[in-house]
């Protein structure tokens, strides 16, 4: 089938949908939507529709990024703007069906926003909401809008237009276009994509490989998964463009096995591409041929590193090797290989379709375009966002994210995962771009962004990341294998109250050695969380070491739970809930926690009714409470 035919088919399918008298209901059934209960909502929707005998088309879509609002549905009635409903439950679903789909009342009280032409009384425009207003969707352009398992949906949204343009120009012209766009790799290091392509293009040899890095190992990051689940063709089209430009005829997608839905979506997409003549021999009736294989990772963080990834594809243990030679010179099976990240590939297909100048119009001089982030942690509106480079952290955290819940104070924002750092409030007005974050000691990385509030201990965060990198170190080079172990030991001493004078300096010294001496960037960046927390939160380290105190009241060994005698009403809820049976006291007696038995699990703190709030957590300060239960109201 020629591409013209496919496009005609796609457009007529779209037209039929738009002119159909049926309403359409889009429901987000990505991993996060399902976790929030979209499956039950879908069932309720189907049964309500069947009961009421009305025709509506249900379309399952990927994640639009408003994770806090999941399960999220969008209803499009003919001739009306579409209406979004957030946090839908099966009960709400049946109300929405009877009130809006049947009776025509859009229920402004339940609606989150509208999209498309026209307005509805009392409902704001979705993209005017603070959470979306400053977002620009390029990599995620179709996520949440199209059925990811239907190639025609993608084509009808301008899909494979970029490839068509690329195939009409010279390979070098494609590379020049990518160079002019200023796109930098989104997998972490931010290397200019066009320059990397040129290296691979110029490498001698006729067999070349293209790889899509979908290993996404950073804990707390899920941008690539959401993209692959929501719009796999955007990534695959990018790979085709790269393959044409570099003269590669074979490609691999290296994806973590923990992403079953994304893998399934990719398989469906590849099959549809083949059927449409977009994969295999003579793509779009040109001389260009390309084949793609999916390789599932097997659970090793280091395999996200490009040389380790290639070793893994070849069937070896995923251990990095020194560079040079770079993959562009000698990659898979010794052949020139070009590796790019999932999001990089999705940007490529957009750039070729809409032009380098359009893309370069977003962002800053040295960091062009947009970047996706998974905004999580202590934040009102966690989600997947895409913003122009150069936006400030404050805009991201307070406008898009809605600030910190429970009126707690902002403590820091962690960017770049285990390779990044923690930035304090003084950086809130810094622009988010490669240079600014690097100067501050952190990195943009792949896009994890975790907001930390006053309850988060910064020493514990450093320990957390070190524990991760130490466990994931492949063990090949000594600075990384032993350096991270020594650093972790010191950090564990500090959080458990055994820190010693000189520990901070020793950590800094070890950090420098691990950074300089490690074979790959796993070790090379592992000290970043430690160095940034020492740089910006040194007083917290000192409180742990010298006063045996955790200011955030988070480190178990340094805190104690107490019942406040003046507040305890002797209800007994805490004593019944305590898993360690460490709480003494009968009804109407002021309860007492046996400090020797207490495991500091915090259950009592959670279950004590808020009208009493009788459990206190303290660190590094003495407390005077009765040793035995006494009647409520008696003087302690």
């Amino acid at each position: 089938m020629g591409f013209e035919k496919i496009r005609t088919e796609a457009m007529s399918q779209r037209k039929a949908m738009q002119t159909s008298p049926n309403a359409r209901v889009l429901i987000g059934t990505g991993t996060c939507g399902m976790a929030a209960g979209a499956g039950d909502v879908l069932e309720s929707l189907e049964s309500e529709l069947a009961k009421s005998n009305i025709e509506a088309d249900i379309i399952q879509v990927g994640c639009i990024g408003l994770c806090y609002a999941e399960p999220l549905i969008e209803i499009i009635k003919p001739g009306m703007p579409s209406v979004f409903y957030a946090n839908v439950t099966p009960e709400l679903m049946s109300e929405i069906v009877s009130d809006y789909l049947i009776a025509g009342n859009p229920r402004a009280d339940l609606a989150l926003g509208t999209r498309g032409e026209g307005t509805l009384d009392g409902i704001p425009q979705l993209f005017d909401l603070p959470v979306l207003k400053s977002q620009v969707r390029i990599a995620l352009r179709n996520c949440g809008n199209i059925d990811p398992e239907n190639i025609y949906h993608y084509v009808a949204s301008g899909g494979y237009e970029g490839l068509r343009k690329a195939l009409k120009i010279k390979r070098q012209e494609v590379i020049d276009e990518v160079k002019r766009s200023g796109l930098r790799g989104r997998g972490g290091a931010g290397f200019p994509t066009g320059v990397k392509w040129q290296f691979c293009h110029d490498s001698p040899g006729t067999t070349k490989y293209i790889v899509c890095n979908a290993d996404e190992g950073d804990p707390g990051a899920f941008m690539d998964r959401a993209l692959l689940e929501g719009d796999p063709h955007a990534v695959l089209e990018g790979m085709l463009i790269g393959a044409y430009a570099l003269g590669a005829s074979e490609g691999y997608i290296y994806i973590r096995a923990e992403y079953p839905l994304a893998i399934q979506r990719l398989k469906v997409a590849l099959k549809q591409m083949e059927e449409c003549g977009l994969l295999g021999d003579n793509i779009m009736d040109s001389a260009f041929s390309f084949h793609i294989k999916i390789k599932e990772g097997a659970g090793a963080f280091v395999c996200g590193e490009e040389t380790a990834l290639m070793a893994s594809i070849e069937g070896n243990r995923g251990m990095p090797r020194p560079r040079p030679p770079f993959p562009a010179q000698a990659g898979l099976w010794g052949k020139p290989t070009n590796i790019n990240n999932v999001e990089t590939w999705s940007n490529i297909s957009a750039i070729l379709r809409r032009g380098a100048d359009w893309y370069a119009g977003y962002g800053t001089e040295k960091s062009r375009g947009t970047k996706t982030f998974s905004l999580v942690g202590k934040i009102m509106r966690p989600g997947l966002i895409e913003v122009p480079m150069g936006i400030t952290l404050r805009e991201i955290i307070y406008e898009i994210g809605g600030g910190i819940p429970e009126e707690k104070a902002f403590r820091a924002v962690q960017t770049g995962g285990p390779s990044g750092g923690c930035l304090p409030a003084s950086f809130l007005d810094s622009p988010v771009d490669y240079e600014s974050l690097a100067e501050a000691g952190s990195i943009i990385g792949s896009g994890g962004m975790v907001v930390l509030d006053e309850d988060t201990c910064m020493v514990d965060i450093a320990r957390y990341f070190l524990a991760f990198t130490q466990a994931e170190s492949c063990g090949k080079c000594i600075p990384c294998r032993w350096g991270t172990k020594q650093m972790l030991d010191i950090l564990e001493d500090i959080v458990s109250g055994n820190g010693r004078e000189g520990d901070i300096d020793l950590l800094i010294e070890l950090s420098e050695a691990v950074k300089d001496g490690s074979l790959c960037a796993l070790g090379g960046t592992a000290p970043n969380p430690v160095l940034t927390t020492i740089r910006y939160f040194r007083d917290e380290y000192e409180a742990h070491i010298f006063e045996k105190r955790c200011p955030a009241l988070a480190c178990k060994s340094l805190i104690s739970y107490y019942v406040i005698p003046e507040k305890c009403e002797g209800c007994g809820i805490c004593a019944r809930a305590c898993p360690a049976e460490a709480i003494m006291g009968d009804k109407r007696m002021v309860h007492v926690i046996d400090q020797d038995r207490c495991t500091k699990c915090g259950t009592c703190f959670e279950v004590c009714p808020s009208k009493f709030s009788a459990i206190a957590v303290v660190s590094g300060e003495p407390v005077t409470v009765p040793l035995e239960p006494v009647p409520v109201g008696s003087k302690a």
Partner: protein
Amino acid sequence: MTLQQVAPTVPQAEENTVEGQVADILALYKGEQSELIPILQRVQGELGYLPELAMRQVAGFVGVPDSKVFGIATFYAQFKLVPTGRKIIRVCRGTGCHVRGATRLLSELEKELGIGPGETTPDLEYTLETVACFGSCALAPIVVVDDKVHGRMTVPKVRKLVEDEPVSSQG
């Protein structure tokens, strides 16, 4: 560590069926080294873990030393050399979940089940695992039992999770 020490020996009666099952899987491949990891993934998918015998069989098929297969099976966290429990409880240890108290959930489960992460109760009822991120950070902290995702977990909720599951004998 030798193979014998980590992989339980399979009773004779079962051996033939394991060998047959693995042979069926191998028939789908060419025997190239790049297929090694996909083959092991498939074998584990079928058998639930990688018995010693299966690893030897795969090594012979691909034409690499047994030690190479063992090296791969122990390098990648996905591969298991011992059978897993009937229920797999996975606690997210991603950053989003960590800052919302995942550590407490994990220690509670360790205490309730009497096993550490990566271990299985002696009655083969539960396996406890940790995962880097489920991508459901918005509902953190997350605990997944088999394929059911439980969001916004607390220590009491986690305790109910294992109490509610009918346990043949607490290991």
